[in-house]
């Protein structure tokens, strides 16, 4: 209760004689309009005319019969419209007729029951008194008495040592229950810093796994790339792919804005960037050719491919990590090394060496 409420005039409605509650900022108007009581009951047609009543009975009956027919039809459909393996139309028919039958079965009961209640059951509103939620003063006194007695008999307040050690025990006992969840997952911190790319790993197309020749990559084309040898069915395939996925694009070398350090990371205008968004890790899968922008379809972070994949728009902050590439003796694109920084979403200690 706030301090100033004592100063407020206590205005208690006479209805609340059971217990006087504070009314706070409430304004009680002495000359408020008097409650005229419940509105007069309106008689329904079904109350007035036997014909209407009989009609309503028929309607309810009909609805329940429709329900029975619907359920029966659903049973029939289960057998009459079986699923033929490989035939998608049979799946459609099964779903359709089974669903329709059950729908009728349900609607018939539902609409019937409500119609019955609205037309044939009495529609007089009934008034019931409420009582305050709090117990009466006697009940509360009795409850306090019980608590005091329990306290006395157990010595809960009196025996401080027992009470405090009990608190200690109760505070500690859940901890083993929490710690046993420690093995939910191993620490992955180091794994987040490395991907399947190694010096000399060929760049292969996703999903067929064929290595890519630099000469096959035309200006403007986009390749979805994985490390060669990473194939579906391999152990840890998805985990590795979730970090190693790369987008390969060839642009006109004159358009590339490259730092001195990174000048050797591209090959004749072919650049490879991590496909995993630095925001929350969706694949940055959309490439707009004329702007050279990469767009993440999940949250629209936009990266400028020719300018080191820096963020030009959207919630991401860091540029997409670049995979340094070159070609091997046979002309296939290969990685010079792994990425030089962790790929994907930020994490707390990603920059800690």
């Amino acid at each position, binding site marked *: 209760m706030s301090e100033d409420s004592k100063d407020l005039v206590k205005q208690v409605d006479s209805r609340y004689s059971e217990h006087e509650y504070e009314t706070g900022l409430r304004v009680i108007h002495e000359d408020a309009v008097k409650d005229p009581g419940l509105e007069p009951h309106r008689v329904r047609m079904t109350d007035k005319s036997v014909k209407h009543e009989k009609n309503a009975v028929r309607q309810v009956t009909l609805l329940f019969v429709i329900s029975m027919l619907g359920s029966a039809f659903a049973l029939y459909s289960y057998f009459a419209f079986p699923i033929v393996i490989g035939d998608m139309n049979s799946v459609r028919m*099964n779903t359709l007729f089974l669903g329709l039958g059950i729908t009728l079965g349900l609607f018939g009961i*539902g609409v019937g029951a409500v119609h019955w209640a609205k037309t044939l059951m009495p529609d007089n509103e009934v008034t019931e008194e409420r009582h305050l939620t709090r117990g009466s003063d006697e009940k509360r006194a009795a409850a306090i008495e019980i608590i005091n007695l329990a306290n006395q008999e157990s010595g809960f307040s009196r025996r401080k040592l027992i009470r405090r050690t009990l608190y200690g025990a109760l505070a500690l006992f859940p901890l083993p229950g929490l710690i046993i969840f420690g093995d939910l997952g191993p620490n992955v911190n180091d794994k987040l810093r490395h991907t399947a790319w190694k010096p000399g790993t060929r760049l292969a197309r996703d999903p067929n796994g064929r290595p890519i020749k630099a000469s096959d990559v035309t200006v403007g084309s986009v390749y979805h790339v994985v490390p060669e040898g990473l194939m579906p069915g391999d152990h840890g395939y998805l985990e590795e792919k979730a970090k190693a996925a790369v987008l390969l694009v060839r642009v006109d070398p004159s358009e590339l804005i490259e730092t001195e350090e990174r000048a050797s990371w591209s090959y004749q205008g072919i650049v490879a960037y991590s496909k995993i968004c630095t925001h929350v890790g969706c694949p940055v899968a959309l490439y707009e050719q004329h702007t050279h922008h990469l767009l993440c379809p999940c949250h629209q972070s936009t990266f400028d491919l020719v300018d080191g994949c820096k963020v030009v728009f959207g919630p991401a902050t860091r540029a997409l990590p670049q995979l340094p590439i070159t070609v091997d003796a046979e002309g296939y694109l290969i990685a010079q090394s792994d990425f030089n920084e962790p790929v994907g979403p930020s994490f707390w200690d990603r920059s800690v060496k």
Partner: protein
Amino acid sequence: MSNTSTTPKKNGFLAGTANYVDERVGVGGILKEFGRKIFPDHWSFMLGEVALYSFLVLLLSGTFLTFFFDPSMAETIYEGSYAPLKGAHMSVAYSSSLDISFEVRGGLLMRQVHHWSALLFVAAAGLHMLRVFFTGAFRKPRELNWVVGFVLFVLGMAAGFTGYSLPDDLLSGNGLRIIDGMMKGVPFVGTSISAGLFGGEFPGTAIVGRLYSLHIMLVPALILVFLALHLFMLVIHKHTHYSGPGKKDTNVVGYPLMPVYVAKAGGFFFIVFGAIMLIATFFTINPIWNYGGYDPSPVSAGTQPDWYIGWLDGALRLAPTGIEFMIGDYTVSTNILLPLVVSLVFLAIVAVYPFIENWVTGDKREHHVLDRPRNAPTRTAIGAAGVTFYAVLWAGASTDLIATNFKMSLNQVLVSMQIALIVLPFVAFFVTKRICLALQRKDREIAIHGRESGRIVRLPHGEYIEVHEPLEPHDLYKLVDFKDYKPTLARPNAQGKITFSSRIRASLSKFYFEDRIAPATQTEIDEAAHHNHEIEAEVKKAIEASK
């Protein structure tokens, strides 16, 4: 049976059964207590029922699905009946979801029933919350039940999300990837939380099994517990009713549980179930076969989460560019933390709102008569601002679709949304409050001067007036029956000090009730009626004179 169910005979089957059960369970006392319990009737009271019934449908359809679903992430090669995916590598979870859809009779139907009812459950719960908010049903003694309901809403979202991810398809997999990215953004413990959930690196082979445990056991069990609490308190408090003649804080007006309410509510369960079944029969939801199994590299453009997660996804999208920063070697992912904090603060405000309003009004009495939203203008305006904030976040999850469908620049759509997120709630607050006050003034005007009769009279001196007719008492009472509060000043306490909290309370009370419109009183109405009579007399006199 039919004759016994209408009038139980002394020794009939029904009487015998009733006697048997009563002697063993004491059901007579329960029925005496609750059988004629009164439930007020209003369409808006059915929103909570819709949520409850959708939950029952979820339990039924979900149980069916568990019999066929295999929550394993072991890799398999698809050999099922869906030709386009034949020979594809996928998880057992995804393959069994396809089998449910294509090889089990009624399987696709049940999958769709389950998904549609989940969407409906959260929607109905949300609307029910809005109804409770805008009518002030959260006031004493129902504050705790509001919190329980709030927990249910959050649990509903949790149940939805854990279930959404189970089929291990491309769409839900990308959803999980976003969750993984968000968790990693949490300082200190983010990586460990992610590794703990996924059992190591993302995606790992554990997540579907773990989400399955949460989805079919822990979350529904919690929902059931809180639902029981929710309904228990409903029975304790008895349902609220709308203001109007005969409706008081000390009574409850409505229909008895047996038979009317049982028939209506029971029938309504079948109607809700039927509606879900109808939708599931005709409308595909979550066609997982189109997406393919989860693969971290592809993603479809225009991806959308289920609607109730939209506002969180929108929050992620609307975060400004480039706000991640470093403290020494450590990365602070503000672009993730900010949306996270904003969403949590928003939820926290929703959860504690009843206590704030109660503290401001200081009205400690029980409130069982609902407010018409207009009669609590500031509360209604706060609600409208909250809804607007949520709606902008929610629309934010569709920036790309809005841009492509309306051929607008994505960047401009997003920047407009960022501005809208800050500005529109204030606009909504202001507009709503003005509308409420205007409606209150109109009510007051009608209450005092009566309704317009459409009869225009020219008085002898040339003045034109429209004759107003007094309202019927029941209609009048509907316009004047609401609770009126006035602002307070910061007052010194017993020690003569004006405390900080009393200053806050004073300014909040000003914010709430400064421009209140008081209900018309009988004195005002009588005065106006007197004035009306004078005009009537003048009119009569004029008519007489003209004859």
